[in-house]
């Protein structure tokens, strides 16, 4: 890793430092609100980690620091590498906070949170990371190609489409009982398909994400995606006028 990339990474840490405490506080408050449903609890934790990781990008967009950062020693590639490092650090910090808070909450909230215990595990960590890391790996190329807000909108639009498609595929991979909906008739058809996909995904997490071989395969897949996403981001950013 080049020293300009490390400098860019340190810069991201420095500019977000003032927000760490309020972000951590908001994080646990939101988790507290969704403790009754373990899947929403997990999804909230993962989404908040994504938001925390995107904060540095938002600050840079707010102050339009692109030209300044591009003029400092280093290449566009090193700026992108610094961003990926910072994103990874924020995601891991989010995971740490998630696991720590979940462990702390268990004794305090007793039976209400009994199912949360299963998340303080390899399974919980894998499920958390697959969501946040995947989202980050898809978002960052959009960001480097289109800028923060436009990238965020396009990422969101593409995210809806590809998530629905992906969940549809996942629903097809699991046994019928694993994706059955109790109230399927109440949902319009497209939403019912997505809900079945979500149930199937939850079933997969419950059944497979605790297995070291599966986690190893997921880690390998994510590593490949990190490489591809980074290459794409670097290519986009090298061609951009700031």
């Amino acid at each position: 890793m080049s020293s300009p990339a490390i400098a860019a990474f340190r810069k991201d840490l420095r500019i977000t430092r003032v927000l760490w405490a309020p972000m951590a506080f908001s994080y646990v408050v939101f988790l507290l609100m969704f403790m009754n449903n373990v899947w929403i609890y997990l999804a909230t934790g993962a989404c908040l980690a994504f938001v925390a990781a995107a904060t540095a990008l938002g600050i840079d967009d707010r102050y339009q620091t692109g030209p300044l950062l591009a003029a400092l020693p280093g290449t566009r590639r090193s700026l992108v590498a610094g961003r990926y490092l910072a994103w990874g650090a924020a995601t891991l910090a989010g995971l740490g906070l998630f696991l720590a808070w979940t462990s702390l909450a268990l004794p305090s909230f007793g039976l209400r949170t009994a199912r949360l215990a299963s998340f303080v595990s390899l399974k919980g960590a894998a499920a958390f990371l697959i969501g946040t890391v995947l989202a980050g790996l898809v978002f960052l190329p959009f960001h480097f190609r289109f800028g923060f807000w436009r990238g965020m909108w396009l990422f969101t639009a593409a995210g809806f489409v590809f998530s629905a498609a992906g969940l549809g595929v996942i629903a097809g991979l699991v046994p019928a009982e694993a994706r059955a909906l109790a109230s399927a008739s109440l949902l319009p058809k497209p939403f019912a398909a997505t809900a079945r996909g979500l149930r199937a995904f939850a079933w997969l997490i419950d059944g497979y994400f605790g297995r070291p071989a599966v986690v190893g395969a997921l880690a390998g897949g994510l590593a490949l995606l990190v490489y591809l996403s980074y290459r794409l981001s670097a290519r986009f950013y090298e061609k951009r006028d700031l």
Partner: protein
Amino acid sequence: MEYALEATGLCKEYPGFTLRDVSFALPRGYIMGLIGPNGAGKTTVVKLILNIVRRTAGRIKVFGLDNLAAETEVKSRIGFVLDEMPFYGYLKVDAIASVIAPYYKTWDSGRFEGLCREFELPRRKRVNALSRGMKMKLALAVALSHGAELILMDEPTSGLDPVFRRELLERLSGLIQDGRTSILFSTHLTSDLERVADYITCLREGELVFSTTRDEILEKWALVKGGPDLLDAATGGLFRGVRRGPYGVTALTSDKEEALRRLAGRDAVVERLRLDDLVFFLAHEGSPGREARYE
């Protein structure tokens, strides 16, 4: 001669603006002023050197190194002040230094602190609370804190009070005395350049008008003032810009000797040129419809 900066055939295309085939060279140890009217391409040139925007064609060498092939090394040796220096407004002056310092191996914290004292920059104040002039001073302090050998400045004196402007110009003159530091300085305030610049590069509408020494410009270019009959067959092709007024004509020539020869015995005065006159007239050079006018 050793050059700090060489631009060759520089082109950049934007929608609605094109920088065309701009070439110039800044010898090491000198100050070059980049002048031209708004939209001439001065900021684009500075951004191209720093690779903030990608060039469409051409080549830039800094200390003999290609600015893209050896990007990190080249930028490590450059200090810069951008037109709008986008610092993080909620950070304090000290924190800005701590954000930028890790990028430079040669960052000198003591020097930064010294410059803050000299510029009367309050290090505990947030950037948002600084005036435009103070922000410019902060940008200067940052640019001068890592021993840069080439300093690029895009409108550095705008927003500064006349006293500090004068002090800054003196400091810039002092910087190049070591024979190793060079400065490229884009500005609208051409009077600043008359004080300090050794070379002047003039751009207009994305094209290079000239790039030469200040002395040569002041020697060869001149203003000619005369009556309404100044523009006749004898002076055809002599002037590069004309300003007509109710009492006569003022014109710009790039050949003072020729003007003196052709106007000998006529009721006309050949005056020493100021750089702001030059920019003014060149902005209106060309068709008669674009002549500068005053009423």
